[in-house]
């Protein structure tokens, strides 16, 4: 069963169009949504949540096509958008009290434990917390009602490396139970690489790839060559390429790499950058 599905979803905003997006997140897995600024990551998440409506296509979240219209579905989802906007004059325990009145399944004990574990100051007003702590507060709120699906939009941005690592541990712990799924967007590809089972690349409103992380890493290789050698390669086989002062760097499916070139394993950030640049240059 899939925790969420997008089938041929299109949404236009002025000059920006999110075009024909198809993706699905199997239950019990983590999917990373990667894309440059303005690629359409937040639009995707807002569409899924029903905050904005699609021009065409079909969406399903926890088997529901309009989660915002069904309170019981929203109860099963935890969301952290890129800027957490909790009431500025309130402290964490007061925020916990408010959430207890909003969520039926609120676990105050777990919320307090998370706040302590993530070192969120209890006696500081929300507006006086650092950006990192505000983000952690949002994450604590999103996790403390035992959601089945967690949707995170740039949740690790603004966190220091230690806090990011702690958050990733929390996510891994969360998905240990195979009923729990996570969809997270991030610029920090290395974070996604650590925890995600699936990776989706978005570029200028288009989905350029959505695949299992391990399959991606096994399928693609990066190798170095000269500009002349690059020119001889079949352009259709090249996933992405980059010319530097020292030669060319090329990413291709491993089975397409010509004999004589020794390929290295590709990391996701490199793959994404070269795919995006490759699309522009090739």
């Amino acid at each position, binding site marked *: 069963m899939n925790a969420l599905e997008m089938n041929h979803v299109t949404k236009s905003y002025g000059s920006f169009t999110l075009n024909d997006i198809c993706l699905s997140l199997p239950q019990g897995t983590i999917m990373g949504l990667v894309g440059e600024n303005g690629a359409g990551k937040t639009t995707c998440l807002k569409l899924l*949540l029903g*905050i*904005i409506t699609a021009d065409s296509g079909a969406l399903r979240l926890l088997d529901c096509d309009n989660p*915002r*219209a069904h*309170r*019981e579905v*929203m*109860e099963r989802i935890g*969301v952290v*958008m890129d*800027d*957490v*906007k*909790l*009431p*500025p*004059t*309130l402290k964490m325990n*007061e925020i916990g*009290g*408010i*959430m*207890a*009145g*909003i*969520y039926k399944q609120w676990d105050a004990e777990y919320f307090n434990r998370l706040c302590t574990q993530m070192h969120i100051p209890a006696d500081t007003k929300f507006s006086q917390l650092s950006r990192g702590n505000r983000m952690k507060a949002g994450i604590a709120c999103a996790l403390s009602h035992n959601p089945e699906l967690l949707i995170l939009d740039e949740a690790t941005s603004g966190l220091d490396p230690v806090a990011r690592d702690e958050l990733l541990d929390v996510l891994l712990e969360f998905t240990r139970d195979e009923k729990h799924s996570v969809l997270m967007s991030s610029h920090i590809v290395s974070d996604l690489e650590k925890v995600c089972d699936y990776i989706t690349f978005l570029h200028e409103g288009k989905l350029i790839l959505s695949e299992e992380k391990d399959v991606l890493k096994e399928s693609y290789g990066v190798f170095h060559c000269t500009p002349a050698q690059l020119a001889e390669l079949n352009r259709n086989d090249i996933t992405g390429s980059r010319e530097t002062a020292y030669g060319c760097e090329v990413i291709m499916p491993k089975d397409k790499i010509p004999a004589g070139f020794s390929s290295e394993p590709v990391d996701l950030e490199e793959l994404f950058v070269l795919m995006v640049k490759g699309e522009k240059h090739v």
Partner: protein
Amino acid sequence: MKGLIRKDLLQISRTYYTFLLISLLFIVLSAVQPDNTFFAVYGMFLMCTLVSTLQNLDEAGGWAAYCDTLPVSRNMQVNEKYIFALLLSLAYIVLYLIASVVGSLIRGNLVLPQLFATCMVMVMMGMIGTAISLGMSFAYGMQKSQLARIITIAVIVSLGMLVLNYSSVPVQIIAGMNQFVLTAGMILASVVILAGSWKFAQYKYEKRDL
């Protein structure tokens, strides 16, 4: 809903406690001067604008948009603010009643019909004030609602002035009416205005991009 009301109570006590103190001062002043209903009614008006200010703060601070990610529908947000405004108005009237009765008993001149009449004016002010201020806030957002509110009040006052200047018939009709019927009619009209505003706010807020 419980969580939203709790949030508003906490936020009002933190951010707008001066408003609350001024309103309490108005209650005391109206209890000291029972013939002067201005303070009591104006205090009620402050209560109504306080809740719409709170809604504007929610929008400006991003809480309203954050609610879209919680199991809180737009309708629920609208309902909560209207209910909160009515609860606040009710609390204000109860406090006014207590202060007035105590003040009158101390002075030894408790006039129940006058107290009842003032309370009815406060009830109407509470409903109409809430209808205008909250309706506009939900429908047009923080900045446009200020202008919309001014225009609405200006239109209502201008129409009233126009009718009164054009003919003295409405005044004669009102003067000739049974007081009970008049009061009941005005309360009913206030309820209708409040219900209309409530529905209008739900309709417009559902469609707004926060």
